[in-house]
């Protein structure tokens, strides 16, 4: 593994200098543990899934606009269609639902195949919705909500993404990565890896497929060749992955420090990550600002830090904030002006992005 432990040790002697404390621009208490956050593509709305079930839709200033009943026993995921007119949700009732904001009952109710629907992904053109439920991947036609594809996995699906507009998908699960195509019942390609992959993020340019692993490592594949690379040595399992829009940087959690890998040139093989230290407890989420290298990280200690994530751009946080509750999720508004953070207490809090000097 290329230098992660060394990088962490080298950094640990340096104390982070105190940075500007940023006031939130708004704070809303949705009354329950927020399990997922999603901004509508235009940035007018922020959907929040809750562990109790309801789905709360906030306006861009945090005003509560709507509350859908969501999913009995708990909601797990929310995702807006690319045009922003429909909101898909998945939950512990084994269903995915599609809501048109304002309508009290869902436009569609889809059976994911297992007890929980945990993963949702709209195709780039909004024509299809993919659901991941246990070992079942299903694809639905968004015009009439008919099931147009069903792909069974040997293990629970932990990550799901569309690849371009071609009706192709990629999933991760225990044992590897699978590539699927609508109309073909079996996987087109498989990258096998004997290990438990617990989340997946495909780089925006499609070149890299990254998975966090139960054994405290990050596994990396080049999607074209299947050539792989492993970054081990994290203190915790890695569930937090965030790409910069230009696919140059990948930020990872898996401990209290943010590690940033540089994917320029031939990739991160043999390199050391840059480390950003500001949290005292494990990182709950990381996310790059759309269109820039400004990085936000949220900690289980309730702290939020903004960083310049670009190479050699300083170790000092550009600004910090925090709440007295464990952080769970981050979501940048599509225009990048503010970041919303969800906390276990039920608070959803927005901060304006600091300017990158």
């Amino acid at each position, binding site marked *: 593994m290329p230098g992660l432990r060394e990088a962490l040790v080298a950094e640990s002697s340096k104390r982070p200098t105190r*940075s500007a404390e940023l006031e939130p621009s708004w704070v809303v208490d949705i009354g329950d543990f927020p*399990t997922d956050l999603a901004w509508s593509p235009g940035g007018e709305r922020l959907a929040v899934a809750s562990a109790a079930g309801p789905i709360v839709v906030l306006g861009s200033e945090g005003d509560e606009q709507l509350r859908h009943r969501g999913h009995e026993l708990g909601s797990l995921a929310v995702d807006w269609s690319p045009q922003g007119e429909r909101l898909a949700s998945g939950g512990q009732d084994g269903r995915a639902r599609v809501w048109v904001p304002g309508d009290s009952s869902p436009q569609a109710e889809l059976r994911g195949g*297992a007890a929980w629907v945990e993963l949702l992904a709209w195709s780039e053109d909004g024509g299809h919705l993919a659901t991941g439920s246990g070992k079942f991947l299903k694809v639905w036609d968004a015009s009439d909500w008919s099931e147009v594809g069903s792909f069974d996995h040997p293990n629970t699906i932990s990550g799901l993404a569309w690849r371009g507009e071609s009706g192709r998908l990629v999933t991760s699960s225990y044992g590897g990565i699978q590539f699927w195509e609508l109309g073909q019942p079996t996987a087109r390609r498989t990258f096998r890896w004997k290990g438990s992959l617990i989340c997946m993020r495909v780089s925006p340019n499609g070149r890299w497929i990254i998975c966090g692993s139960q054994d405290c490592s990050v596994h990396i594949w080049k999607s074209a060749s299947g050539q792989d690379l492993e970054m081990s040595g994290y203190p*915790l399992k890695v569930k937090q992955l965030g790409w910069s829009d230009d696919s140059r940087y990948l930020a990872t959690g898996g401990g209290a420090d943010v590690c940033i890998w540089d994917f320029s040139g031939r990739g991160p093989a043999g390199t050391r990550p840059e480390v950003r230290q500001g949290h005292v407890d494990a990182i709950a989420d990381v996310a790059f600002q759309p269109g820039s290298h400004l990085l936000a990280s949220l900690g289980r200690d309730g*702290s939020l830090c903004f960083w310049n994530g670009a190479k050699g751009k300083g170790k000092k946080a550009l600004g910090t904030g925090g709440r*007295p509750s464990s952080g769970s999720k981050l979501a940048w508004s599509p225009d990048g002006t503010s970041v919303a953070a969800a906390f276990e207490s039920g608070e959803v809090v927005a901060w304006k992005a600091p300017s990158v000097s």
Partner: protein
Amino acid sequence: MPAGQADARELPRRVPVTVLTGFLGAGKTTLLNRILTENHGKKIAVIENEFGEVGIDNALVIGADEEIFEMNNGCICCTVRGDLIRILGNLMRRRDKLDAILIETTGLADPAPVAQTFFVDEEMKDQLRLDGIVTLVDSKHVALHLGESKECQEQIAFADVILLNKTDLVTAEELDLLERRIRSMNAMARIHRTQNTAIALDRVLDVGGFDLGRALDTRPAFLEPEYPFEWSGIYLLDAGEHLLTLQDGSPDPSMDVLLLRLPDESEQAMATALDRATRLISETRAQPTTGGELRPESLHRISLAPKGEKRVTVQVSEPGVFVLFTQHLPAEFSMRLRRGRADVRPTSTHQYNPGHEHDNSVTSVSIVLEGDLHQEKLNRWLSKLLLESGTDIFRMKGILSIAGQDRRFVFQGVHMLFDGEPERPWGKEERSNQMVFIGRNLDSAALDRGFRACLA
């Protein structure tokens, strides 16, 4: 760190998790239903082996699909239940905080990955604590599985609590035999006998099986030294000829019997006799005979190979108090002692923790050792032991006296995972070392030697 946020966060209590194992038909579902419907005032979540999720009154039932995740490094102790990590992770997000979580495993499950999930995964470790492994046993049918099923043996070996269920379907003698046999496999579990899984909830939940502070809150059998005999009976014998008879019983090749004269029936006399018997039996090489005479103070080995009743005469020259030690339980052979036509019964009997069991590959080895241990030596020995035979050691527990430390060192382990800490001071209590291993193919002599070599 910004603004000292972490200080303001309350540390939540870790929710206890109980793992329920047992073969199909042992009564797991009955016990679960009992727990779900009983009015105990606790909020309990049950993770079942079946598809689906339903809320029942004050409880929550979630279906799980057993998914065993092995790690790329091939380490068996890193093998976890991936489905549990997901389910429990989500469960802990609910507002209605749970008092307990029960996990039912499939009949053929290996308990190790479930247990390891709570030690290997940081997220699970933070929020949950494994409280105990409860194994249900079908008293009527378990004997069929004990000898040949690896899974059945492991479920018993891993258990903190064993419920011998369906006791109404077997005789009291059969039940005693079964309990002895299970005890020889697992010396530290609490064993309860039940019908229809009727048991008080506090015997099953919150038993502290993995709690270091409660590491030795277990059965006396755990502390009892091992003897080369399983039973003794005190007899008041008159002068004259007696007859000891054995019927066909268990498939042992022979049975050692030893008769010692006691000055009286006092505990002191018995303690001295125990020492003498242990030495005599360990040091004497006896030839098996099919009959003959059993003389006091001399080991007699009765051959069990030929079929039919075995008869041994006992000549008592002077009346008095005697103690008879037998290698196996007399009940296995319907043993009788007669003088003329009258049965002579013992005035008191005692059962012992056997040093070894021949027909089970899963055994417990308990070691009690006086003196202080050398910490470095102990570390080296344990590391080597776990590296070499960690896959065969299912569980271990101990309370140790480390030289130079005034506090008791308590530890426990599951396979190669090891957890230990200094606990309360010894104070006036006599310092000693107690250790138990439960595993497959354990070499008790080697363990004893190795442990002894760690003395300071």
